[in-house]
């Protein structure tokens, strides 16, 4: 899936500008990382890509394989293959993971998945992620630890089989082992689905070490100001966003 974000300007309901002429192209099979200081618009971008009603696109376009998706609702974008792993996944009491995921999977299939194959897929995914089987019967993220919630996002990703994955700070709240397990699962998924595109939003280079990374972008004040490879992530880790070198090293992004 090829994603083109062209000159996107986005405002909140009270008309505060968050993204300004933001442009980025992610070709099929590419993994891009987006880094930047707090409040620069990274999470806003992830929500705008999924069509959040919290924001208004006032300029620019988002194209998927050449077609604009701006008029599509959130569920239509999900059915197209978009998947957002939330920074803070919410909990919903009374709706079990099984019930929710089976319903979600069936929205993407012409023929409903049978209970037995679904349970088989779910059990395997839980095993891959080192999660307990009782997670199947628990309410969505109810009483889950921060790490369990993040793993649950990757569980959903594995079962829903998206073609464009956005990971919004997957590494926050995960211990080193859980982060490695989640990333190994994502990397395996990418091997099995080589045309899947990925956008990783993060503050730290560690998560990028586990993924087949193509580009790192540095974002500042609502737009990309520098693009490079993994060494850019290392430079940001070492020097921060406020150091003279970091500011002096800004290259305009075309």
């Amino acid at each position, binding site marked *: 899936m090829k994603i083109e974000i062209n000159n996107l300007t986005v405002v909140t309901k009270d008309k505060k500008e968050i993204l300004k002429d933001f442009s980025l192209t992610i070709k099929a099979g590419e993994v891009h990382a987006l880094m930047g200081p707090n409040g620069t618009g990274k999470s806003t971008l992830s929500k705008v890509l999924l069509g959040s009603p919290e924001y208004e696109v006032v300029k620019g376009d988002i194209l998927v394989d050449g077609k604009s998706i701006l008029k599509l609702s959130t569920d239509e974008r999900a059915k197209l293959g978009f998947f957002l792993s939330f920074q803070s996944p919410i909990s*919903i009491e009374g*709706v079990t993971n099984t019930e*929710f995921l089976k319903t979600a999977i069936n929205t993407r299939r012409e023929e409903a998945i049978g209970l037995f194959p679904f349970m088989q897929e779910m059990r395997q995914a839980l095993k891959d992620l080192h999660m307990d089987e009782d997670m199947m019967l628990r309410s969505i993220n109810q009483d889950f630890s921060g790490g369990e919630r993040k793993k649950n996002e990757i569980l959903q990703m594995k079962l829903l089989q998206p073609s464009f994955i956005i990971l919004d700070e997957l590494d926050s709240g995960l211990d080193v082992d859980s982060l490695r397990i989640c990333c190994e699962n994502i990397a395996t998924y990418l091997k099995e689905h080589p045309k899947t595109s990925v956008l990783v939003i993060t503050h730290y280079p560690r998560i990028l070490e586990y993924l087949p990374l193509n580009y790192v972008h540095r974002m500042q004040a609502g737009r990309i100001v520098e693009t490079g490879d993994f060494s850019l992530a290392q430079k940001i880790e070492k020097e921060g966003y406020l150091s003279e070198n970091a500011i002096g090293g800004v290259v305009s992004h075309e």
Partner: protein
Amino acid sequence: MNKIIVTDSNEENRIEKVPFLSSNYTFQDAKRLFLSFEKEKVNLDFSVPEETDAEVILFGEQSDLEISYHLGKGSHLIVRCFALSTKGTIACYLEGEKASFTYHYAAINDCDVSLKTAVHHLAPHSISNMYQHVVVLKGATTLDVDGIVPKDINACVCNQDNKIINLGTSDCTILPNLRIDNYDVVANHAAFIGKFSLDELFYLMSRGLDQTTCYQLLIQSFLFGKMSLREEEKQLFYSSMTKVMEV
């Protein structure tokens, strides 16, 4: 159809022939009662004897319920009620020491509905926990909820949790009253009137569920999330909920 199914302590079911629209019922060998009413005016009086555990599952549609529960010493009663546009007056009298009452009331209303609920703690160490969650599609709903502990009754727990999700345009009201005259009491109340969170809706839709399915899941979660329903209760409550939602 109005009916009552009685489940005894051996988990055997039987249908009882009682003039149940206006009647007194004392739990004896019965462990669980399942009652269903449609378009009826119902006047019921339940008594739970000392040291008895009992459950009442109630489904009411467009009915008018007037129900009293009387609990003896050391008895435990759990009520799970799902009501569609049903008004009424519910009273619970905790008459024996250490009596315990857990009340789950879930409702969907599409007309003006008024519900008065009162729990009277008449013995020390008695416990009441009331959860009343209502989804309003149309019309105005009023929940008037009293928890009453007189001066000479101590060491009680008296909690109430009242929530209305208002999907319509009329004003809804919750009147949460804790009338506590004793210092040695644990009493809490929560009252909320509002809409579903947009974050919840966005999360569910981001997984490919359309808006109607998301609302169904959120309503199901809001109404029955705390209820611990049995499979047959789930089937009845969920199918009735879906039917109302489709309309």
